[in-house]
């Protein structure tokens, strides 16, 4: 119990950040028209591609071949997620624009 409290105290800022982010995420979505669900999902998909930063960090500290190979793979996959995600979202949204 004391351990837990200490852990919570030490990570208080993180916890506030997480709690607030959850509120923000929920509020942002709750008033969205259903036509936009698919582009929104796709945009969110691109955003979680931010995980590629983790793979860059890990790759930049890799020392042996296995790490290098796995890291390279991770960077490639993460980048596909990011770039593909944003581009495909843009393509979807392009179709929504008002045409005369």
């Amino acid at each position, binding site marked *: 119990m004391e351990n837990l409290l200490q852990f919570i105290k030490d990570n208080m800022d993180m916890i506030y950040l997480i709690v607030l*982010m959850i509120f923000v*995420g929920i509020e942002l979505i709750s008033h969205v*028209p259903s036509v936009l669900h698919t582009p929104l999902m796709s945009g969110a998909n691109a955003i979680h591609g931010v995980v590629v*930063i*983790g793979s860059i960090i890990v790759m930049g500290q890799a020392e042996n071949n296995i790490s290098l190979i796995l890291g390279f793979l991770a960077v490639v996959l993460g*980048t596909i997620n990011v770039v593909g995600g*944003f581009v495909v979202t843009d393509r979807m949204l392009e*179709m929504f624009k008002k045409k005369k």
Partner: protein
Amino acid sequence: MQQNFLQVIYLIGSITFIAGLKYLGNAKTARKGNIIAAIGMTLAILGTIFLYENSEGIRLQNLGLIFGGLILGSLLGYIAAKRVQMTAMPEMVSLFNGMGGACAMLISLIEIQHFTSHGIDINSMPKGEFLIIIIGMIIGSVSFAGSIIAWGKLSGKINDKSFGLQQMINIGLLIVIFGLAILAIVSGGEYTTQMFYGVLVLSLLYGILFVLPIGGADMPVVISLLNSFTGVAAACGGFLYDNKVMLVGGILVGSAGTLLTMVMCKAMNRSLINVLIGNFGGGAASAAAGSSSVQGTIKEIKASDVAILMKYAKKVVIVPGYGLAVAQAQHVCHELETLLESEGVDVKYAIHPVAGRMPGHMNVLLAESNVSYDKLIEMEEINPEFATTDVVLVVGANDVVNPAAKSDPTSPIYGMPILEVENAVNVIVNKRSMKAGYAGIENELFYKPKTSMFFGDAKKALTELVSEIKSL
């Protein structure tokens, strides 16, 4: 100094993610939102490469390989995204999502590998760190494997597979995975590494088994769920490296994705539990389709008669559905619309929010064939208009015009708002047979005296219709 600068870049990145997602929620600003988030992402990635230092002040190595990976990934992602057919977008999103999950999984793998390759006992790793690594790996690999299966199902490469004890096995598997993970963290024995890899394999297996039995039509919901999983996996990475932009991006997608999943379920009038366990979008549907409860006679109509009806109508409303997408009939549909308009007929499209197989499916589909946005009328707006409509042409839609949703409390779609086409003077329904749609239920509408069935594949039927109208 540079580290502080990097933190500011991360802050900017985080704000662009939030603002981007906010803008994405509004049709007018959506594209801008996507671009804003993309710019923030680029900043964050470049900032990391050039400014990141670890706690000992060491810069990133292997920059050549990193750039190689970035360039290769960008090329592949760009080409895939540009080449994909509009109708294949959901599976593309799923595939990209899987890549993100795999990336998270690999990060955890490398972290462990990094540790063990130095010959250090893995049990000496700080527990908190190990916990985060293992959670990131579990979620990442479930998301990876699940997304690949979802992609396979949507693109028709994998069929629905369900067997009796599926749910039991899945729950059991989950318990084993978490048990093993906890054991690996606390036991401190000599098999910790093996347990870790065991968790990896089982997580991948779980991802596969989790998605396999879910009906193909429920896939958008599942993809959205897996999407939020990957968000959480990315957030784990943020925890691990104390990296705020990963944390913000990850949690944002995690929470927004979860809510989006629920909202999507609601629009289809189903509960999430139902989607995950119910298996109603797949096998059950075809099964139920056999047992017909609605009786009556149907009236068939030929293309030439439809042509006359439509040409001399004042107002025509086209109701597109899943069949239009399957038949890729959007272009000929647009041709029909312009043809009728040139004859002085007022033509509109009635867009049901869950027509098709993904939210906004019809908008995207019709926009692809250059149908003007003003002609796409949302359900609430068009419903009162049916009373003044001469001809309603239902193309490949079924559930979204099923009156059972309003009248029959025992129907699985009871309570879902529908397009009230029966108020129009004439209803013409184009589909290939009397088979049921997604919900697997009979449709009374087809047996009404007002309704005429215009059988045939949507693309062929509409092409025929267009040439008949031209020849009148």
